[in-house]
């Protein structure tokens, strides 16, 4: 859902934090105020992330999916190709463990990667995303998702008062 986002550039953390406090007092919900910064800021320094970080559970899901796949590969081999080698039993535990382990780890890596990308909102190539390359000069872009012109005006006021430059409404996704 595309919406109106008010953005403003800040030179330093303190004014950005002040602006963010003002925006929250408008009031805007926590999830609608965020920053674009060239490096990570501690949670709460400027804005707070109300969403829980859920994707690590997919690491576990991936691990188990991988383990199942590995186990299936090993057991399937014993079932479909019961060739005796070295006078040993067809089913052997240690190789099964090794194969299961390696495929499980692959599954965990894949699960983390896919779920992580999904939750970070990467790979949205068709969506118009709010961005300002000037953050790479060390600036912070404060963004507030607003509904309606009135809220937009008040948000812009708040940002300008706190020392934001180039404050403007933009259309796009956060």
């Amino acid at each position, binding site marked *: 859902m595309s919406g109106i986002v008010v953005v403003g550039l800040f030179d330093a953390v303190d004014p950005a934090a002040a602006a963010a406090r003002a925006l929250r007092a408008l009031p805007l919900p926590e999830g609608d105020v965020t920053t674009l910064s060239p490096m990570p800021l501690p949670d709460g320094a400027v804005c707070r992330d109300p969403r829980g970080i859920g994707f690590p559970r997919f690491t576990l899901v991936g691990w188990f999916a991988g383990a199942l796949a590995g186990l299936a590969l090993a057991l399937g081999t014993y079932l479909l*190709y019961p*060739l*005796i*080698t*070295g*006078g*040993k039993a067809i089913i052997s535990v240690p190789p099964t463990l090794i194969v299961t382990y390696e495929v499980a780890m692959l599954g965990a890596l894949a699960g983390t990667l896919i779920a992580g990308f999904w939750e970070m909102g990467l790979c949205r190539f068709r969506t118009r995303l709010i961005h300002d390359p000037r953050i790479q000069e060390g600036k912070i872009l404060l963004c507030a998702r607003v509904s309606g012109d009135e809220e937009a005006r008040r948000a812009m006021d708040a940002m300008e008062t706190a020392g934001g430059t180039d404050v403007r409404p933009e259309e796009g996704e956060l």
Partner: protein
Amino acid sequence: MNIKWAMAIDLDRCTGCGACVVACVAENNIPVVGEAEVEKGRLMQWLRVARYWEGEYPEAQAVYLPVPCMQCERAPCETVCPVYATYHNEDGLNAMVYNRCVGTRYCANNCPYSVRVFNWFDHKWEKPLDEQLSPDLTTRSRGVMEKCTFCIQRIRRAKETAEEEGREIRDGEAVPACVQTCPPGALLFGNMADPHSEITRKLKDPRRFRLMEHLGTEPRVVYLKRQKGAGR
């Protein structure tokens, strides 16, 4: 009838003449690689007669030890092959499937007897020598392992003949080329699951031992120890 092929090698009778090796080469389309390659350690023979010296000169005596594939019941070569190119067949033989082999050579490393040989090159038989090739089995391309099969083509033929005639395979019907050729009769081949076969009798000889028995490979080739003493 249950079949368990086995071979006995009587070291007391072996003279080290090497006729078994020649017979093996002729029977199994084994390439002759020439002096230079042999010097590099690339002899293709499936059966070697290892020669050791006992005692010091002038009392030194040669000891001969023919070493074919041991057809181990717990063959270490089989487990390490990543593509099942070598496995145990229903007669308990250590079978080698050339077409499956990709040539990792792991099996050769894991064979304590080092009886596996590798096709380092494609081998050609100049005309008219190609006429000597046995049609019963293939020639092997470069990059695959090969080894003694107990002349599996002869075993197959004997089994098929027996089946056609609707009877059990007889003792002495399947004979590998080396066994057939050995002038002093040092080699004996047969079914050790058959209680009346000659090999079963021979295997009860108190002189019996197996090569590197401590490795637990359970070879199907049994040696009969050389006797020491007067007249030897």
